């Protein structure tokens, strides 16, 4: 296991259960914003049961690549395939249908809606019978399942009907993580998932992420916390200037090498 800062709580990396056919394969992804080329042929494989850390300097294209995979941004060129099947993702809804869910850097929560409403927004449970026709919400089930989902991250709230705007920053982040893990069946993409969390909660989030990977999900984590990524992830993918320039085994790569790859500098072995 790689060395890391003393203040970082320990999380055991699960044994990789990665399958041979990638759960998600991004090949030659190009995304342009006017004259700016945010992605220049980025390619990346995500396997089921595997945690991949995506690292890179600011502007390297990490968030854009994640947004392409989750359907928030349409690529100009390149191909995405899911479980070996080339697939055109036109929207976030398409990605959800494929079981891909995302923890966004800004969390993408509706502050006026309750904790339970946010967890279920877009996938609301509707009871059978006439209530299905009208679209009546099964709020009891929503609260029960939200309590369980938050509980798995070590969070227990007294009231799950409080607006999310009343939660602390850490609790909001935990909710965003809980939502993605609850609904994902293929992959979870996480953009700085522990940015607002303290060491204890960060450790719990990564334990949950590890458990999700062991359960068969492919996990992609964007983080600037490279020591933590060396500890948690199976592979480290390094982005620079809109492309994935290297992929290394997280168990063997050294921190200095990762930083060197990020900056485009030679690292003396």
């Amino acid at each position, binding site marked *: 296991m790689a060395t890391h800062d003393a203040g970082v709580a320990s999380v055991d990396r699960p044994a990789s259960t990665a399958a041979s056919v990638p759960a998600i394969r991004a090949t030659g992804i190009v995304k342009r914003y006017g004259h700016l080329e945010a992605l220049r042929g980025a390619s990346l494989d995500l396997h089921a049961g595997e945690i991949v850390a995506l690292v890179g300097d600011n502007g390297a294209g990490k968030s854009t690549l994640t947004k392409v995979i989750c359907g*928030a941004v349409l690529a100009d060129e390149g191909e995405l395939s899911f479980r070996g099947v080339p697939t055109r993702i036109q929207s*976030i*809804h398409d990605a*959800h249908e494929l079981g891909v869910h*995302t923890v*966004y850097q*800004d969390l*993408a*929560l*509706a*502050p*006026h*809606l309750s904790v339970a*409403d*946010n967890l279920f*927004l*877009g*996938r*609301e449970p*509707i009871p059978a019978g006439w209530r299905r026709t*009208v*679209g*009546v*919400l099964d709020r009891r089930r929503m609260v029960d399942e939200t309590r369980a989902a938050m509980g798995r991250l*070590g*969070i*227990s*709230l*007294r*009231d799950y009907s*409080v*607006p999310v*705007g*009343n*939660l*602390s*920053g*850490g*609790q909001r*982040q935990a909710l965003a993580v809980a939502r993605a893990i609850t609904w994902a069946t293929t992959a979870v993409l996480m953009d700085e998932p522990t940015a*607002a*969390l*303290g*060491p*204890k*909660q960060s450790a*719990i989030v990564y334990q949950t992420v590890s458990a999700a990977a062991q359960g068969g999900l492919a996990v992609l984590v964007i983080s600037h916390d490279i020591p933590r990524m060396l500890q948690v992830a199976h592979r480290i993918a390094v982005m620079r200037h809109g492309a994935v320039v290297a992929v290394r085994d997280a168990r063997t790569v050294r921190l200095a090498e990762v930083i060197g790859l990020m900056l485009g500098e030679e690292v003396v072995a």
Partner: protein
Amino acid sequence: MTTDPVADDGLNEGLVDDPESESKPRGVWESLKASTAFWIGLFIVLIAIGFGIASAIEHGSPVYWKVSNLLSIGLNASQVMILAIGMTYLIGAGHLDLSVGPSLILASVLAAKVMVTVGGTAEQVAGGEYPNLGLAIVLGVTAALGAGGLVGFFNGVIVTRLRLSSFIVTLATSGIAYGVALVLTSAANIPFIPDQIQSGFGGLQLMGFLPAPLALALLIAVVFWWVLRRTRFGMRTLAIGSSREAAIRAGVDVDVHTIKLFVLMGLLVGVAAVVDIARNANTNVVGHQTDNLQAIAAVVLGGTSLFGGIASVGGSILGTLVPVMLQNGLVIMQVAPFYQFAIVGVILILAVYFDQRRRDRAT
């Protein structure tokens, strides 16, 4: 009070940013204090008490409190109530519809034209005979709903497809709707609307006391309140108003939902147009131009946030009563009723101010 989220290393620490509200669950009084609708309700009670006492001193009996007077207030507010219900949804979703007044005029004009044309020949309707009365009314009502719905659909499509502000789009649509209405009528009201629509609905009193238009408005309010609180449609409406981006990323088809909201608003405009014809057995081509502002003011007074995400149908109903109650009371007190505009203006500023403070606290 805000906590430093990075320093929040406890698993269950800080349910909310204010630790006091974690230790003491919010009581009924705390909830009421935070509700704009509660304060407007209280203000309405105070208006009623004040004008009741004043009218007793002035006239020897509290005429303001007479049931017939209170029902008259409700009846006079019923059209704006119907508009305010739809506006509550739109504002709750972060939009506005400035076209509801002119759309109401257009819908009522079309409904009246259909009723008169289908009701009988020109000679027959001029003589008060309507051999096709039932069909005329059904088609007239359909025309009103269709016209309102189409204007709403147009608004929704333009707002979502061209990514334009609903404020500007509906301001433009209001001009288009009013212009079309004037062209169709040459700015003259449409004569020979069947009186039966007035006797059978507009002037009807259910159970001998409850005006049918008011009953209809309250029924619509109950249905829309329930939908907003209990259904996926209501939840998604407020989600869009709270954070459009969050709703999109949760997989909600925000554009389709927004179009539905504008169509719903348009259909309610059609209902209000029918109520208008039924109450007066006439069209009012030069009226209703400020109905949009009355509806928006009522919605904001009732506690719906102009910034979206928070909406109260009940509060909007109370909000529609404030100007009508003030006007009614001032007339009874033989004071120029125009003061109501100034009073409502002051209350509106206060309501928006508290809404702004609430928003600042939430962020």
